[in-house]
């Protein structure tokens, strides 16, 4: 059977008409990303593990220094001057810094994450106390006690949003497209329309293509609003082109759609589609490198990370938004991987539709 773009267009038009009428889903598509963003943006801004502490050593506090170096949760970065420390904190690269001098110990803290600031201040105070106790037992004459001065730096707000924002854009599109597509195909089955298509000139390829086209319009709407929220509300930079970012999201959305179509074969009801969330969505969130860098994912799981589309989409979106990458820069491996993922599941989805025939 030869494939006709017209028939795929007929399916696309129908899908658009249906979604257009589904106000609740449209509301979800537009507002859920905003809610998610706020949730991720604020609730997670106080991440405690892997605190990076700058250290400017002006001498006189060997004990305090070795105490700070010994704390496992702290990554200590040695800096030349106080101004370097200030700059790095305001850029969000450091969580705080200790400036050690013979007369004074200055603690520079990032005002945007008070939890981390509290942890750093406590560590410095504990270190200073330990140092003094050590000197006393050594029977050394105590000089004038150095003062500890705390100073807050108001620098970069919600620095985590920078790295997470672009990835959330991908996550939101993937999640909703997958769920909506799986449910749409479940309905085609239960309504009897799928069986009717099987006995019509409409081919499986035309049908799935029509769905990809129709859903793409809503993916665009959704990614455009999400992109707007991420950049306008949360001030995540958009250094590359918005069109490039949307292209990445569209390709990811197409992959999520065919994946949803494929998995709809394994669910009997809309309710069962929801049960796919822990199976399909959660691993992507955990392993795609949004929250934890891929380098920290155990090596035996890492190949799995590289099989997930969100890994590539998140990487590409970060490159476009934060580093200003163009299409050419993300072609390999990101767009290529997303394209391959789409093609594999497009084929799988159309083949599974064939298996309807008993």
């Amino acid at each position, binding site marked *: 059977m030869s494939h006709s773009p017209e028939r795929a267009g007929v399916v696309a038009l129908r899908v658009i008409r249906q979604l257009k*009428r589904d106000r609740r889903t449209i509301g979800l598509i537009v507002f859920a990303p905003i809610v998610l963003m706020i949730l991720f943006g604020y609730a997670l801004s106080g991440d405690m593990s892997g605190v990076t502490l700058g250290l400017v050593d002006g001498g006189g506090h060997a004990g305090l220094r070795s105490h700070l170096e010994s704390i496992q949760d702290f990554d200590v970065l040695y800096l030349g001057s106080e101004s370097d420390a200030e700059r790095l904190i305001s850029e969000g690269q450091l969580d705080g810094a200790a400036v050690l001098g013979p007369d004074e110990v200055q603690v520079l803290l990032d005002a945007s994450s008070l939890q981390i600031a509290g942890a750093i201040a406590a560590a410095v105070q504990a270190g200073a106390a330990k140092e003094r106790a050590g000197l006393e037992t050594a029977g050394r004459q105590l000089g004038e006690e150095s003062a500890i001065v705390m100073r807050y730096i108001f620098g970069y707000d919600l620095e985590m949003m920078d790295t997470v924002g672009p990835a959330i854009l991908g996550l939101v599109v993937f999640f909703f497209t997958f769920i909506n597509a799986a449910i749409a195909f479940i309905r085609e089955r239960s*309504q009897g329309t799928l*069986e*009717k298509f099987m006995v019509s*000139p409409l081919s499986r390829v035309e049908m799935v293509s029509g769905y990809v086209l129709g859903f793409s319009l809503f993916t665009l709407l959704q990614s455009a609003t999400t992109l707007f929220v991420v950049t306008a509300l949360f001030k995540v930079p958009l250094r590359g082109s918005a069109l490039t970012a949307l292209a990445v999201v569209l390709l990811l959305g197409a992959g999520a759609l065919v994946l949803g179509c494929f998995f709809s074969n394994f669910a009997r009801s809309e309710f069962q589609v929801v049960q796919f969330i822990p199976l399909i969505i959660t691993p992507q969130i955990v392993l795609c490198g949004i929250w934890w860098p891929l380098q920290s994912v155990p090596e035996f799981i890492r190949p799995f990370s590289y099989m997930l589309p969100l890994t590539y989409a998140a990487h590409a979106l970060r490159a476009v938004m934060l580093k200003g990458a163009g299409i050419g820069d993300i072609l390999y491996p990101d767009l290529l991987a997303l394209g391959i993922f789409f093609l594999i599941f497009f084929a799988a989805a159309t083949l599974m539709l064939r298996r309807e025939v*008993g």
Partner: protein
Amino acid sequence: MGMQSAISARGVTKSFGRQRVLDNLTVDIPSGVTYCLLGPNGSGKTTFIRAIVRLLHLDGGEMSVLGRPVSEVDKIYSQIGYMTQHKALYPDLTVQENMEFYAGLYGLYKQQRVARLDELLRMVDLLEHRGRLAGALSGGMYQRLSLACTLIHEPKLLLLDEPTVGVDPRLRQTFWDYFERLTQEGKTVLITTHLMDEAEKCQMVGYMRAGRMAAEGTPEEILRLAGLRPILRLWLAEPERDAALLRAEGYEIDVVGGVVLVRLEGHAQIKEVLSNVSPLDMRLAEPKLEEAFLRLSEAA
């Protein structure tokens, strides 16, 4: 397998697990007729229809559809209208949008589509409901819309699985008139139904039982096969005498409570009977197809 047959099946079998659903079924459905498949639930009617459109593969036997082997039936899907027991509509689209969608699938656009939509909407009496969401229609309306969508591409072969469920009698008659018009144009209509009075309207009836064709023919032939004949009830001034007279003429006669019952060979015999006796009153009791099938199932 001549071109006269719209569908021709020879020794067709299909099993689901250990259950034989079609058991060496042989049937010819001529072109240009309404053919009714009757039979109890699980007798294989729906399985047979699904096999015709290749929604399932046969285990054995041969079948041709519109002159082509069933393995090539996907090449002539545009000539087949298939209406399942599921209505195959989108409840969140309007009546018109549902029809436009199906019209598009079969390559009907613009003026051609507009004209066809109007004609069908009028036939199924949904013209003034075209803007309503299909999900808001009553059961019968939904059914009518489903039929209209099945007819949209003017198929040569119509396969209708229980098409008149929930449709009121007046509109049902409209459907049957429409089907008759289709057969006059040379199209073939294959219908499954539980309703005997509908079967009586078909030109041919096949009675399926346990995956086989238990009886097949015109409704009259089926009645005769079951040994059922129309009965003429006569109220006569002298029943005993006239009964004897008719018996002498060779008629099968019963007298029940003073009423003379004549078992007819056919309707033509009514005139002959009346040339022998002059009843005060009379009534003709037609045998029911239902009765015939009950008898046939008992016999089998």
